[in-house]
């Protein structure tokens, strides 16, 4: 095959009969049995994803906080030790370089989870910005970490026998460093499916052992391996953007419905803020919207969006939703077309097919409710 990189579980995927595809230079399992069944398993019991292609980086040093606060849009001062924050890195034009998770280990130490295709450029960007700060070290540690995600209502009971950590006390968007099945891991209550679940960062060489212990212990909880195909459908049902598809470095947070992770008033400002102020003053021209097909057809990335015969935008993601059984999509439409129920048409292979604007998410979120209200926004 190609020169695509392999995760530590390549052999396991092949033995499980997965269909392997190349995804951003990585050979990944797209499905094991059926995308529809796999989505159902995650929504009803629990699914295990190999997402070892994701990038990890560490930023540490006396000025690590100042650096990260300045190069990300969310307010890092709101994050406590043991907390995880969803945030964006913007360029000077206010456009999104990447969306990422920041894990706060301490005031001078942060662990980052980055999109695989962006990891190298992200780390270079952070390192460049770090030159302005004395004593900050930025390291790409992606090759040291495998990453698994366990998602679904059975995730907590399933993990329980493998760790001493009190999982019932671990809030959404919080993490612990713990021993899981005899391996030291970072375990966070996060995910990309809208279900309760955990993401596990473990040593690259130990990923296989963690994976097989989870699959073994998970049998009685209905745990099954789940491919990237289902992961993509599940995230779209939740209206979560995928970098490189729904957002990229030509799109601003306001356009991408990500204004909630931009804290314009935070102290010291941040890269891209001036551009966002300007955009706000001049008016944002387009916005990411969700829609559901009422006519027959499935929207796909690149299809044009029309309203009363005029082109108003383009689809970025679309699928047949396994959970609600209807075709859904997201795309950018001219500003002012976001109202629930607005009639639109999608140009599917030259045919206008009716659709209607829907509020996101398409499927109700089942993530664990935080005990503290101030994290309610982290959805």
């Amino acid at each position, binding site marked *: 095959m190609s020169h695509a990189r392999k995760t530590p579980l390549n052999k396991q995927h092949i033995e499980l009969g997965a*269909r392997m595809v190349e995804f951003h230079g990585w050979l990944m399992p*797209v*499905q094991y049995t*059926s*995308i*529809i*069944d796999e989505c159902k398993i995650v929504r009803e019991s629990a699914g295990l994803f190999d997402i070892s292609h994701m990038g990890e980086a560490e930023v540490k040093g006396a000025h690590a906080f100042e650096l990260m606060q300045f190069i990300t849009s969310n307010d890092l001062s709101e994050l406590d030790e043991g907390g995880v924050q969803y945030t964006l890195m913007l360029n000077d034009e206010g456009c999104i370089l990447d969306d990422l998770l920041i894990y706060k280990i301490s005031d001078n130490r942060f662990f980052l989870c980055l999109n695989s295709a962006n990891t190298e450029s992200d780390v270079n960007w952070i390192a460049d910005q770090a030159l302005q700060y004395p004593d900050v070290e930025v390291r790409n540690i992606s090759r040291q970490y495998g990453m698994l995600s366990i998602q679904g209502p059975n995730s907590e009971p399933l993990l329980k026998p493998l760790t001493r950590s009190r999982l019932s006390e671990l809030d959404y968007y919080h993490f612990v460093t713990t021993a899981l099945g005899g391996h030291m891991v970072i375990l966070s209550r996060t995910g990309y499916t809208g279900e309760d679940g955990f993401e596990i960062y473990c040593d690259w060489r130990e990923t296989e052992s963690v994976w097989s212990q989870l699959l073994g212990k998970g049998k009685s909880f209905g745990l099954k391996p789940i491919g990237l*195909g*289902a992961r*993509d*459908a599940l995230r779209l049902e939740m209206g979560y953007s995928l970098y490189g598809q729904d957002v990229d470095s030509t799109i601003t947070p306001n356009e991408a419905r990500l204004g909630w992770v931009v804290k314009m008033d935070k102290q010291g400002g941040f890269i891209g803020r001036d551009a966002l102020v300007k955009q706000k003053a001049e008016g944002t021209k387009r916005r990411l919207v969700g829609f559901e097909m009422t006519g*027959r*057809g*499935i929207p*796909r990335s690149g299809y044009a969006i029309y309203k009363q015969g005029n082109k108003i935008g383009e689809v970025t993601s679309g*699928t*047949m939703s*396994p959970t609600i059984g209807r*075709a859904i999509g997201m795309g950018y439409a001219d500003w002012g077309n976001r109202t629930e129920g607005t009639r639109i048409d999608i140009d599917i*292979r030259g045919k206008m097919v009716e659709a209607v604007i829907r509020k996101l998410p398409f499927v109700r979120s089942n993530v664990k409710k935080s005990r503290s209200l101030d994290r309610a926004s982290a959805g």
Partner: protein
Amino acid sequence: MEFPDNLVYSKEHEWVLAEEGVATIGITDFAQGELGDIVFVELPEVGADLGRNATFGVAESVKTVSDLYCPVEGEVVEINSSLEDSPEQVNSNPYDKGWMIKVKMADPSQLDDMMSAEDYAKYIKESK
């Protein structure tokens, strides 16, 4: 994987059952497996004229869209409208309930260029 002997096969993974000048066309067991869960099938209208190897519709899985090719020239005389509500029949029953269109062939000799079950099985093995 199953490839019935009474059918002929194309390189684009369609099968044809020829009976009295009418070709019933669908996609093979191999093709449905590769596509995964089929969630939408778009078919032509009855009466449409199709050229040889023209696209006659699409089959969509959760993730992908695939064009469907008509291996023989002719006029569409019937479509399997049950696929509109139950596209999964293409997965579960590709040679029977999962059929797609029936075409009145303009030139039945075009079938001679298609593969036998044995040749098609070999073709898949080689292209894998």
